[in-house]
């Protein structure tokens, strides 16, 4: 049995600065049984209950994002990172808990209470998401212009000329050749498709950008250019980002704070340099020692 004592630091952001706050979020898939909680979690080393087969994707997850901050989420496959991101993207409904959003110090809104229409509008106006696999974020039969227009139409943009101009502007920003606005995604390389996804995600000037393993599977020089692009966007637009990755190197480059997930639980949260140089939890130590 490993002994691990959580230290008593308060892992939050300065109160007036937060834009997104996740409170006690839970998500499971399956029937659940009375023994689920004893049989799952990081100490048991599994997120599925061996008795009833329920998968506990997120258990009591808490986090805060400050405006303009990049927060890294690391953990192995199946740790619940993507489910958490999908709940924040309002694509998966949590079992319980709250997701508070607050723009410019205004009153906070609980996003889990939005109806389907409100959630879709919020997602298209305030959030942008980039996936590891471009076919999840893009409609592969639409042109680049069509993909960006789709997001803008859902964000209630109506003027064709403005949509077209915004698309060109985004292609320049993401270092895509604007003359290829009418080309379809399958004609682009993997690295370019990630840029197209980023362009689409940024289309409606969202407050928060969600990034799900976006450089996995790309070769290193392409990875570096994508990360440089994100760094530039973060500097220029002060956009808030939630960066999910199993690669500590990616997180080190972009995020100043990092949370570590395992079997649906947050096992450690801290400053990225602290997570890398003084990891407290056994799992984080394993993760850091496994880095190439």
């Amino acid at each position, binding site marked *: 049995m*490993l*002994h*691990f004592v959580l*230290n*008593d*630091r*308060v*892992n*939050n*952001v*300065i109160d007036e*600065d937060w834009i997104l706050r996740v409170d006690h979020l839970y998500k499971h898939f399956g029937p659940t049984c009375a023994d689920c909680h004893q049989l799952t979690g990081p100490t048991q080393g599994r997120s599925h209950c061996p008795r009833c087969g329920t998968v506990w994707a997120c258990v009591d997850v808490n986090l805060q994002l*400050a405006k303009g901050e990049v927060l890294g989420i690391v953990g192995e496959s199946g740790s619940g990172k993507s489910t958490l991101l999908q709940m924040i993207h309002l694509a998966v409904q949590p079992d319980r808990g709250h997701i508070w959003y607050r723009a410019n110090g205004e009153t906070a809104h609980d996003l889990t209470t939005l109806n389907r229409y409100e959630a879709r509008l919020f997602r298209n106006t305030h959030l942008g998401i980039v996936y590891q696999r471009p076919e999840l974020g893009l409609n592969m039969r639409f042109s680049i212009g069509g993909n960006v227009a789709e997001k803008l139409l859902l964000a209630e943009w109506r003027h064709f000329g403005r949509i077209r101009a915004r698309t060109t502007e985004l292609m320049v920003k993401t270092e895509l050749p604007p003359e290829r606005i009418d080309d379809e995604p399958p004609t682009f390389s993997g690295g370019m498709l990630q840029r197209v996804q980023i362009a689409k995600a940024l289309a409606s000037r969202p407050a928060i950008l969600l990034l799900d393993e976006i450089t996995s599977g790309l070769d290193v020089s392409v990875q*570096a250019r994508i990360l*440089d692009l994100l760094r530039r966007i973060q*500097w220029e637009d002060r956009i808030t980002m939630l960066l999910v990755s199993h690669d500590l190197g990616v997180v080190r*480059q972009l995020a*100043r*704070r990092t949370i570590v997930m395992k079997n649906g639980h947050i096992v450690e*949260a*801290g*400053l990225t*340099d*602290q997570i890398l*140089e*003084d990891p*407290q*939890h*056994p799992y984080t*130590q*394993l993760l850091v*020692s496994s880095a190439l």
Partner: protein
Amino acid sequence: MQPLLEVDHLVKSFTLHLIDGRTITPVRDVSLTVHAGEHLLIYGRSGMGKTSILKCIYRTYIADSGHIWFSSQQFGRIDLRLAADDVILHLREREIGFCSQFLRVLPRVSALDTICEPLYRQGMDRTTARHIGQEWLERLGIARSLWPASPITFSGGEQQRINLGRAFIARPRLLLLDEPTASLDEGTKRIVIEMIQAAQHDGTAIISVSHDLAGLGAYADRKWTFNE
């Protein structure tokens, strides 16, 4: 006068979960203080925990017990051991600088942008920041032809100068320097000592870790080492 930083009975251990859970304790019951404008030099044998003290103050390491009281302009007197992560990030931007022994930068960023980065983080506009950055590169004796190149390609001494420039440029109130004069020739060492003295003159408190007692040590206000 109240000290700017007061380290009180600090203990830092590492539990190596992957190696049978053994614990090593490099910092045992350390207490020290430093006032504004003062230069405290920490010396001692390698492996005694000198750098660990600096990293606990900067919160790259989480200390086990004790207090690290810092008189912040923005937050008042706070314990850096327990302060929220975001408070630490604010302090790193504005009030506390750290110069590690090794420069760790992206290989695709120019020397000029590398040295300016702390100013960009403070929200300074690029033109003003670059102007100040150029002054520092000039002062540190980095050849103009190298400014657009990545410091990764530089010699050890040049990298160390960029590293120091990054720490000084933001004008922090507390500056933590880990072996600042190691790998520097006599001329550059002289420049670095002048930089430290100028920062002290502006009220910056400095804690340096160094073996260079004859060089840097001669200019420190006080020296501190471990009780053995």
